[in-house]
């Protein structure tokens, strides 16, 4: 049975890294696009190859469009691999440029969760009852508070001090306790091992004990947790975006008549999803589904990598 498990684990790992590679390639393609197709230009209509008359954006995926500005002035021909938003901007370019700041935010949030979780977990695992009680108390409150509402309230409260800072704190306040519990369990497990008791008997203590006997076991556990946390933070970012909590303002694009279509201005995946509700009402599914699936694909890739790594860990289940 072991070889089956190893093969399954290897397949999961290959799928995870393969997905990450494919996403990186797509991001590279999006980055290679000229700025006018994803940033500076707003387009009013276009002639899609094969159609008789002009068509208003959003353009569909895999469409080759002769694009015109509001002036009207011909902006040239463009191939929309994943379609466009209601401003005729290429969704691949938008998502590619939104991915980097979003992943930076995810990395900072995961690092903050790890730092707090690691410190609390070590204190809990090394026997500090006070920290364990405080952690349990705060954890109970956080658990009792619906996580999305908590993140929104904290982000809104801290936004005047800087929106990035508010997002990091708001998204870190959830999830650190899982890491703390994991670290505490690992430390407690290491401390009950025979080698650990022997080391203690031989007088190895304090920082040296931690360095020699705890860190080697903690490192793989935390490496795996990083992948799972990255996945969870990405999903949280998307859900916050859907509830209109995101970085930066939006731009209202006024159409003929009274209709106003908002467009995002600061590229970040959460913000790309912030207008989902309105796009759904207008039956414009492309601008909703493309960034949402980008989040799903990234989160899935991290999840698969984490699952594959967990199978390799000595203390894995």
């Amino acid at each position, binding site marked *: 049975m072991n070889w089956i498990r190893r093969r399954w684990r290897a397949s999961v790992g290959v799928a995870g890294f393969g997905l990450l590679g494919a996403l990186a390639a797509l991001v590279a393609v999006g980055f290679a696009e000229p700025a006018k197709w994803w940033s500076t230009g707003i387009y009013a209509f276009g002639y899609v190859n094969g159609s008789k008359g002009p068509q208003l954006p959003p353009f569909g995926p895999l469409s080759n469009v002769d694009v015109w500005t509001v002036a009207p002035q011909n902006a040239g021909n463009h191939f929309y691999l994943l379609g466009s938003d209601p401003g005729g901007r290429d969704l691949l370019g938008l998502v590619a440029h939104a991915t980097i700041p979003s992943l930076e935010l995810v990395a900072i949030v995961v690092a903050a969760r790890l730092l707090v979780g690691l410190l609390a977990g070590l204190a809990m695992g090394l026997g500090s009852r006070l920290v364990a009680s405080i952690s349990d*108390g705060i954890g109970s409150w956080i658990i*009792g*508070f619906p996580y999305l509402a908590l993140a929104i309230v904290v982000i809104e*409260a801290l936004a005047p001090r800087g929106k990035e800072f508010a997002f990091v704190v708001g998204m870190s306040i959830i999830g650190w306790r899982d890491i703390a519990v994991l670290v505490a369990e690992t430390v407690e497990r290491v401390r009950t091992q025979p080698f650990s008791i022997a080391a203690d008997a031989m007088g190895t203590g304090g920082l040296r004990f931690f360095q020699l006997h705890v860190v080697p076991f903690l490192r793989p556990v935390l490496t795996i947790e990083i992948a799972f946390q990255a996945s969870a933070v990405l999903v949280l970012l998307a859900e916050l975006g859907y509830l209109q909590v995101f970085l930066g303002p939006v731009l209202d694009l006024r159409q003929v008549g009274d209709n106003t279509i908002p467009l995002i201005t600061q590229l970040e995946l959460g913000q790309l999803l912030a207008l989902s509700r309105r796009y759904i009402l207008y039956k414009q599914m492309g601008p909703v589904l493309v960034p*949402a699936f980008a989040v*799903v694909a990234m989160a899935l890739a991290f999840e698969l990598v984490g699952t594959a790594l967990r199978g390799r860990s000595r203390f894995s*289940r």
Partner: protein
Amino acid sequence: LGPVLWYNLSLLVLIASLGIVLVFSHFPRIWARVGFLSTLGFKMSGVLMATWVVVTYAERTSTGFLSGASAQTLNASALASTIITAAERSLAVMLAGTVVGTAIGLGAAYITVSQKRRSLAAVGFAAAVIWVFPTFLTAVFVQELQAQVFNITGFAVGGSYGNVDPVQAAWAAVVLSIRPAAYVYRRARLTLQDAQAEDHVRTAKAKGLPWRQVVNRHIVRPAAPSLTAGWIASFRLMIGSLPLVEFFFAYPGLGMQLVLAIGIAYPDQPGHFQPDLAIGLVAAMAAILLTLEAMAKLLQQWLDPRLNELRISLA
């Protein structure tokens, strides 16, 4: 209304919890059974106070949704009535979601362990995919499914949008249950796989018992307390995404009321931040969750009497 109500309520709950400790903590056997009430009270008191502090701080500093509390203030009885009505609606959705999610998650984990087929590994992959699906995306697909059914059959299966409607509640429950089902499956599968490695399972297999009997009697039964812990964690997840799901379906339960109370609005509608209502709704959701957690602990003790003994010795 605000500070006075929340201070007093928090202090009252705290005093009641301390009273329980003072009266019962000297009797270990009784304490093992009623101690959870004091824990519940301490946690509830903390939730009330901490939520009030956070919301009040947010109200003072925010320049966004939470800036400028609404003039539409509620008196205590109107507040209680709004919360109770919303709680009844949400409880119905959560109950249905819990039944669906638990049945799917635990059922799939049980089948995966009891059938031992390699093809069932695909269930694990499916659970990983479902797990990373943001809840609103699932809701979007469900709404599209409703639209397609209507286009094809002419039969409206979506229920009444924005109203309390059993059909709408059922759809919300389905969406609410999908991620928790994936979570329950993953936790339960790990728990059951761990239990398979126990000595007593090896002994049962060596005695030649049929595999199904080994699974039912020697794997699932001893693992029941851990499965309960996984289930309660999934419920926590469910209550966390309740605001999003109810907001999506415009189902006026605790979640949607909370989203609206913190000033988020539907497109083209003005938002009104209502701090008292927000704190009350959070307290109601926390009360539901904490009560269920306490009940789950009692259930664990009933499923594994050794836990009861352990808690008595700790007391």
